[in-house]
């Protein structure tokens, strides 16, 4: 009976481990959407309280404004933190980034999460609207770096998605070349010429794709180092254009590989 129970636990754990890779990031995304809804509501209350304080300048309106501001500051930190957690999950799931890249970006994201945690922890101690403004100023000053991290990591996730498919392509192209070499003695000269021509074409196009992916990576590194949100956005736009080109090149390469496979099928 005990063995049966242990076996059942083992099966349950195995089933949990076999859950789809994206389940964590899906949950993180749902959390982010929820926090965004809460933030919208809290921010609306804050705007109302601020408006009343600026209009009436009474002690009551000031107290209400301070309360609503503190609530908003906490929720703002929570919102950005949840987004950073979403990035963390997506970075962990990404198959195209190297472990070194993953660790580097995860480290950057974690340091931003720590910053926001400090911000959130400091809010209860705020005793005045001036104190709230000073507290908010910390985030305003730090925001370009935070924004660069968020945008850079998001762009690298997109590059990683393409790189994962490119890796699959490389593996299959390698398999095709191995098969060709193995069966070369039994093939006809005409068939071999066609196959060799495809290999040259694919190899050349693959080098061009490598350069495009390097351009994407270069643009993304500039996003991480951008001194302002505007400059980060400009580099993100450059990266996005290069990613589109990379996908197009990968599509062509896959079509060429399909042609190579088709030409391997026949002797002539």
């Amino acid at each position, binding site marked *: 009976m005990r063995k049966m129970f242990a076996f059942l636990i083992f099966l349950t754990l195995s089933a949990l481990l076999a859950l789809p890779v994206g389940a964590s990031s899906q949950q993180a*995304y749902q959390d982010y959407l929820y926090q*965004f809804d809460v*933030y919208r509501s809290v*921010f609306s209350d804050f705007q109302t309280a*601020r408006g009343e*304080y*600026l209009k009436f300048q009474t002690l009551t309106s000031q107290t209400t*404004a301070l309360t609503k*501001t503190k609530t908003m500051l906490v929720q*703002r930190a929570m*919102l*950005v933190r949840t*987004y950073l957690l*979403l*990035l963390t999950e*997506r970075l962990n799931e990404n198959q195209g980034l190297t472990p070194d890249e993953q660790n580097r970006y995860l480290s950057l994201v974690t340091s931003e999460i720590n910053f926001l945690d400090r911000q959130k922890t400091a809010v209860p101690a705020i005793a005045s*609207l001036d104190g*709230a*403004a000073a507290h*908010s100023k910390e*985030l*305003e000053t730090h*925001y370009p770096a935070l*924004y660069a991290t*968020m*945008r850079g990591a*998001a762009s690298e*996730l*997109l590059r990683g*998605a*393409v790189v994962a*498919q490119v890796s*699959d*392509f490389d593996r*299959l192209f390698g*398999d*095709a070349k191995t*098969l060709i070499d*193995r*069966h070369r003695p*039994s*093939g*006809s000269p005409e*068939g071999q010429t066609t196959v060799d021509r495809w290999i040259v074409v694919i190899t050349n196009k693959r080098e061009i794709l490598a350069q495009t992916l390097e351009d994407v990576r270069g643009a993304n590194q500039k996003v991480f180092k951008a001194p302002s949100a505007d400059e980060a956005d400009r580099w993100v736009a450059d990266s*996005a254009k290069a*990613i*589109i080109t990379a*996908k197009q090149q*990968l*599509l062509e390469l*896959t*079509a060429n*590989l*399909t042609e190579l*496979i088709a030409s*391997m*099928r*026949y*002797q*002539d």
Partner: protein
Amino acid sequence: MEEQLQTPVQTPDQTVPQVPPAGLPAQAGNKFPVWLPFAVGLIALILGAIVAANQIMQTLSRTSAPAAPTPAPIPTIARQLSAVATDSAFLLLESSVSTLSGRVSALSIQDSTLTPPTLDLPLGFQQ
């Protein structure tokens, strides 16, 4: 009945009209116009020319109209399969490439879920 048929009744006042016997044109003599055979011949010639012209036009229109495209028969070339075509590794590779092709086509390079939140940073208590 027989009498009626044999002897037609004639009265002295009636004169029998002189009808020229049919089938004797030579006896018509001067009344038959001389140009009639020529006119008939001319009309026959014109009709013949019209029919001939019509035939020629039809033939010309048939030859000048573009011929309807007729599908050329596709020669079926029996291509000989290579030795690798029956290799299980080749068949696996073929299906893997097909799967990859589908994945690359469906690859999304714009992810709206990764858009960072937009924040209104300054609190705005200073007017």
